[in-house]
């Protein structure tokens, strides 16, 4: 009685070609490498800059605190795509001409560093005041206190939040396709426009994103546990 569900005319165009799939797979796997490199490089920039921004917002200097806070707010309130375009297309008018890769990494790194700085801030705030007092009693400098005591204790509680943004940055790398970085979406588009077959390329890209994103949450949790054990916390 459910025969109508499986009638051919429901899927007139659904014709998946395996031979074609195998043909384009190597190119997409190569592009996966670029996507991973873009995500990793952007994330590294964001990890470092995010910490710098978080520390700057806690500094004694009111000017520095104000400037950084407003900058973070500005970046968080404007689209990443606009920032990518701005750096790549408007930069040259100011004499800053950067390759797609460099522009993309700066844009994505800067964008995410503003989100990560908030995560770091939460971690830094979670370190009890008594740790600062103990550091003063040992006559440690502010820099020593941050480096040896506060940052190491701020990292473990920040790992879940930092990890979420790793997945986020990974899923945002397709935006780099608009300035010509040969990551997954860019490559899938290229394949599609060559043959007018989009089904296989886009499906593979989806499967690749899924396969890489899904285990990330578990890995991040495991990493947090590992760090906590290492620090004896």
């Amino acid at each position: 009685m459910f025969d109508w569900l499986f009638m051919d005319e429901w899927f007139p165009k659904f014709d998946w070609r395996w031979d074609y799939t195998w043909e384009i797979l190597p190119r997409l796997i190569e592009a996966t490498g670029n996507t991973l490199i873009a995500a990793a490089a952007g994330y590294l920039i964001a990890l470092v800059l995010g910490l710098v921004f978080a520390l700057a917002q806690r500094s004694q200097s009111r000017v520095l605190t104000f400037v950084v806070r407003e900058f973070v707010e500005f970046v968080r309130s404007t689209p990443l795509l606009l920032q990518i375009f701005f750096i790549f297309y408007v930069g040259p008018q100011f004499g800053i001409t950067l390759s797609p890769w460099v522009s993309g990494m700066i844009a994505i790194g800067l964008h995410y560093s503003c989100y990560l700085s908030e995560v770091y801030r939460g971690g830094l705030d979670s370190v009890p005041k008594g740790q600062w007092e103990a550091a003063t009693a040992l006559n440690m400098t502010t820099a020593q206190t941050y480096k040896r005591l506060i940052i190491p204790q701020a990292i473990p509680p920040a790992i879940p939040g930092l990890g979420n943004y790793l997945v986020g940055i990974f899923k945002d790398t397709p935006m780099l396709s608009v300035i010509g970085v040969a990551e997954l979406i860019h490559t899938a588009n290229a394949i599609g426009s060559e043959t007018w077959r989009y089904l296989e390329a886009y499906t593979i890209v989806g499967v690749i994103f899924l396969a890489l994103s899904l285990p990330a949450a578990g890995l991040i949790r495991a990493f947090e546990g590992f760090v906590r054990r290492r620090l004896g916390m």
Partner: protein
Amino acid sequence: MEDLSGFPLKIDGENSPMVSFRKVRKAYGSLVVLDDLDLDVAAGEMVSVIGPSGSGKTTVLRMLMTLEQINGGVIYVDGKPLTHMEKGGKLVPATDKHLRARRSDIGMCFQHFNLFPHMTAIQNCMEGPVQVLGLSKAEARDRGEELLELVGMVDKKDQHPSRLSGGQQQRVAIARALAMRPKVMLFDEVTSALDPEVIGEVTNVIRKLVSEHNLTMLMVTHQMGFARDISDRVCFFYGGKIEEQGPPAELFGNPKRERTQQFLSAVKEAI
């Protein structure tokens, strides 16, 4: 700015005190916590500070450790100003650099231990000597093990604080403070957060320090019996001032002021 011309640039002489509070004021807004406090502690003396909560007793230690700034007066340590420094023959508020130089004479133990949770007991004891005093790791380790031995914690030296009981953590904290070789040790209600059955292991360590080491000590405590046992002098604080002070036998045995009598009888009833 406050006129400090009445305060000496330094305190000289044979019997000059190790710690001297001169007309020290501290207020949070309109709440006066220390009201022109004068307090001298001689070198090697053990002074206990008792009093009702809110009387300013913990504030005394926090000022001396420079965890908070005073609003008036001057604190001297070892004859030299701590909260101020000399500039052109006058006392001016201390810079961070001055505080760092003068603070090294003082060590402190806290009610909640404040050990570094990501470091083992020995690493806690090595942190200050290596980072601040510039000792080599080997020297700092030797010194740390010696002090952990003193507090009876050397067999747990590679444990993180989360694996130690409160009493054990507090003993490590004492070793950590001593590793900086302070001249003055401050104990801020170090047994208040402990289970009753482990208080003894911490008080015994302090007892040992009193009898075997020539440290100047200032202790805020609720343990009246302990204060009576080991102090050279007990100060009863009330309303940001010293209401009464004297040798423990006298203050506990024959308190003269009415507020002291009230406080001591209230404490006795609680036991």
